[in-house]
């Protein structure tokens, strides 16, 4: 599996650290309440198929990427810098 880093190009997935679903980018307000924080930290749709997720290019440029990947086939659909994802 290779991930297309927007800075470094296609690189072996061993160079990356997997953080999890990209819902982590939608950080709630501090006073949003425990249910909202529980959902953010713990609950995961965990849907088979196209999945937005966060990878860090640890052994490369160090950038955080939002990768779209098919969790059934392992096909990598695309990747953008997490810093450029509009929220």
């Amino acid at each position, binding site marked *: 599996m290779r991930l297309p880093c927007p800075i470094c190009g296609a690189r072996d997935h061993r160079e990356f650290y*997997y953080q999890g679903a990209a819902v982590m980018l939608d950080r709630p307000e501090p006073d949003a309440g425990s*249910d909202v924080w529980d959902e953010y930290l*713990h*609950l*995961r749709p965990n*849907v088979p198929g196209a999945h937005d997720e966060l990878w860090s290019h640890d052994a490369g440029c160090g950038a955080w990427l939002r990768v779209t990947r098919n969790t059934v086939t392992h096909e990598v659909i695309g990747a953008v810098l997490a810093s450029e994802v509009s929220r």
Partner: protein
Amino acid sequence: MRFSGLRVLKEGLTGNKGWEPHWRNPEPKPEYDIVLIGGGGHGLATAHYLAKIHGLTNVAVLEKGYLGGGNVGRNTTIVRANYMMPGNSEFYSHSLKLWEGLEEDLNYNVMHSQRGLINLFHSDGQRDAFARRGNRMIAQGDDAELLDTAGVRKLLPYLDYDQTRFPIYGGLYHKRGGTARHDAVAWGFARSASDRGVDLIQQCEVTGIDVEGGVVKGVQTTRGPIRAKKVGMVAAGRSGQVAAMAGLTLPIESHVLQAFVTEGLKPCIDHVISYGMGHFYISQSDKGGLVFGGDLDMYSSYAARGNLPLAEHVAEAAMTLMPMIGHARMLRSWAGIMDMSPDGSFIMDKTDIDGLFVNTGWCYGGFKATPASGHTFAHLLATGNPHPTTAQHRLDRFRTGVGIMDEEATGSQHNLH
């Protein structure tokens, strides 16, 4: 049909013509008291204990593929009770005791072999951690023995003791640990449940869960609707998909875990061994293959197959620990879909929907739990109350922070296991 030595002898002398199928293959009825979604080890065990202990036989197990085709047929077959945290410790202790009486209970040879499990350690700090774990196991009433290097060398003479990088300081020896024939466990539970009147329905995928006014009413399936008073979701790596049909989101991520087996060899590894530097564990099957595995691939996956970097990593760990393994040829590798929870411990609870129950989050350790998972889930379904050994395994523990069982002391969040 009961199995016995005499029966085997008689069948052997008469051409093995008297054996019958081990379970019925019934059509689904329109209504059951309890429907279990998932015909894997845990679902079949739940059906067995519902029938045997609670006398509930108007029960169906719905399986979208074939019985035991998921993780119960894909694991590395290890059975042990060496957990440390309150909540897990008593549960896995309970499970090992059920294993020890399982063959008699099921009248089925599950080839449970208490050959002993040795967790190796490679530093003073790791020795302290294993000494503590051993003390917790003994306090729970299970067995543990701390071995020094000479003690391990006596049992496992073929390891590389003098490696400069990770010398072997000793091991924690759990004599009652071992292995079991994984498929036979599923088959034994299936046969017992079927004999007692439970309908095991294969090729029957659940496509919807019917909820009216906050109460579960039944399920929609590829073989028609089935009404039910109670529904238990026991779908392991597919738990998220099943729960979504009832509008629920679970604290579960599905990951891929690979396992490997070599060609059949003469007996050479008599125990279950786990390496302390790098995630690697190995035993030898009765057929002779060395069965081993390592860590998750570490990304979300429903593929039931992994990638080569992890295979390479596992092979490197194997070669570092026991160079002799380099002479064996790898025969097959496969993978399963793991239901990973944030604290590495399972979830067994009611849901907010009346009559709908969930059993999930077994991470990569569900096989050893099979009897106790079935036993305690049956208790929950039958009585509405959790069994004492699963009282802590609540669905809301991550929100409340109460009762988290953080076995690896890494905090309770996804992707730390």
